[in-house]
């Protein structure tokens, strides 16, 4: 049994429930124990444009909460994963900054050492659990579907601080989906950004970015798109119709969280994986369990 503190972040825990449900349903089958801790806050990444110090502090604070319980951290959100990784990287190199952060953390009786390891959904599945182990649990293979992947910028870059996947040619999601029985393929727009951060101040542009990518994926003839970040997923799934309108395209593309497909291939009930919360037409393709 691998134990991790589940760091839920804001977007997954306050609106993208399908990700959290599918994470909580599917990972325990692979021997992962998820521990809920009290006291977490935002990771700070969305506010980096406002105050980078605030981002650094919030991330150090969340890591310190997990350290206190001597637990490694599982951050399913790409944005959170970047903030926490960068915090570990910066404080690992800069002892003065670490000291300063710890002086502030002391107010809440916390201390950052940098001892907790950090994983995201993709490296947890691919590197720590492993493709062979995943294959053993597949009871309802995802046969006859061709899926496109979207990794999300924040788990891809910057490689300088260490990211869960390769920066120019990420393939771990493809390997996982193939283990579940699905077909995958490369496409030119694979590394394009969803634009989610621009929702904050330039929403129309955010929708255009998502619309352009969805349109490309649909035109390439994929049956669906798979993602691993609640920000990206919100853009591609819940906001798909609007994104389509923005780029004058009729979009009709099923969008899934990787962990939803994992659960389906393991035979978990659709409802438990939050599939009724996907607003893109996920029923267009027949997959896995009932």
């Amino acid at each position, binding site marked *: 049994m691998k134990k991790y503190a589940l760091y839920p972040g804001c977007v997954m825990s306050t609106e993208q429930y399908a990700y959290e449900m599918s994470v909580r349903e599917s990972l325990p089958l692979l021997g992962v124990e998820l521990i809920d801790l009290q006291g977490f806050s935002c990771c700070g990444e*969305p506010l980096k444009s406002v105050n980078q110090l605030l981002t650094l502090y919030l991330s150090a604070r969340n890591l310190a909460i997990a350290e206190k319980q001597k637990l490694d951290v599982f951050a399913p959100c790409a944005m959170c994963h970047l903030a926490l990784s960068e915090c570990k990287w910066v404080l690992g190199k800069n002892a003065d900054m670490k000291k300063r952060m710890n002086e502030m953390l002391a107010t*809440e009786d916390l201390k950052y050492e940098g001892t907790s390891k950090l994983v995201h959904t993709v490296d947890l599945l691919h590197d720590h659990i492993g493709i062979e182990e995943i294959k053993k649990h597949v009871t309802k293979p995802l046969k006859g579907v061709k899926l496109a992947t979207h990794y999300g910028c924040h788990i891809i*870059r910057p490689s300088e601080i260490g990211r869960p996947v390769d920066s120019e040619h990420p393939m771990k999601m493809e390997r996982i989906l193939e283990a579940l029985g699905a077909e995958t393929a490369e496409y030119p727009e694979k590394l394009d950004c969803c634009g989610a951060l621009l929702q904050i101040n330039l929403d129309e542009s955010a929708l255009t970015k998502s619309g352009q990518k969805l349109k490309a994926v649909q035109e390439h003839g994929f049956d669906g798109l798979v993602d691993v970040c609640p920000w990206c997923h919100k853009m591609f799934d819940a906001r798909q119709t609007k994104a389509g309108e923005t780029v004058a395209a009729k979009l009709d593309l099923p969008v899934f969280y990787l962990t939803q497909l994992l659960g389906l291939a393991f035979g978990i009930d659709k409802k438990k994986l939050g599939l009724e919360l996907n607003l893109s037409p996920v029923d267009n393709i027949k997959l896995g369990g009932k």
Partner: protein
Amino acid sequence: MSIVDLTSMGEAQAQLRTEINERLARLQDEISDYCFQCAKCTSGCEAHKLLELEPHKIVALLKRGLIDEMVNSDVIWTCMSCFKCRERCPQKVAPVEILFALKNMAVASGKQIPGKYTAMLQSILSIGLLQDVQSVTTHDNKMVKRDDLGLPAVSKPMDAAKFQMVLSKLAIEKV
């Protein structure tokens, strides 16, 4: 101290401005040595085609010391922080980091923060999260909340007063 102090021109911000200035000056020095304007950053920039952000020009302007001009420009707020420029720069210049510093400077100088940033900051100060728990729609139009779905209560800072105290202090803390 409150949100007003974190985002206004109040006296508390003077120190923060000095610190960000130092950060920018340091970036300026390094960039003068390294950037050779190959524009690889701009060729891959996600905000370039759509919003005319040209990271190599941001670097060039910084090199010439036109910091105030950029701080006062809307273009710095078009970056969607995809980090492609930082990843691909052959000289490790990282325009995205310059843009973060410029935006931080704009905020510390009391310029109006665009979009929903202020609301997000306010929410983090009061409950620790970007937003409170939302009701969401299922694809057959039912409204559901976390607890309807069998999810545990959301994790939030336990002592809000202490949490807020530190965040407010950050505005005047040294970089």
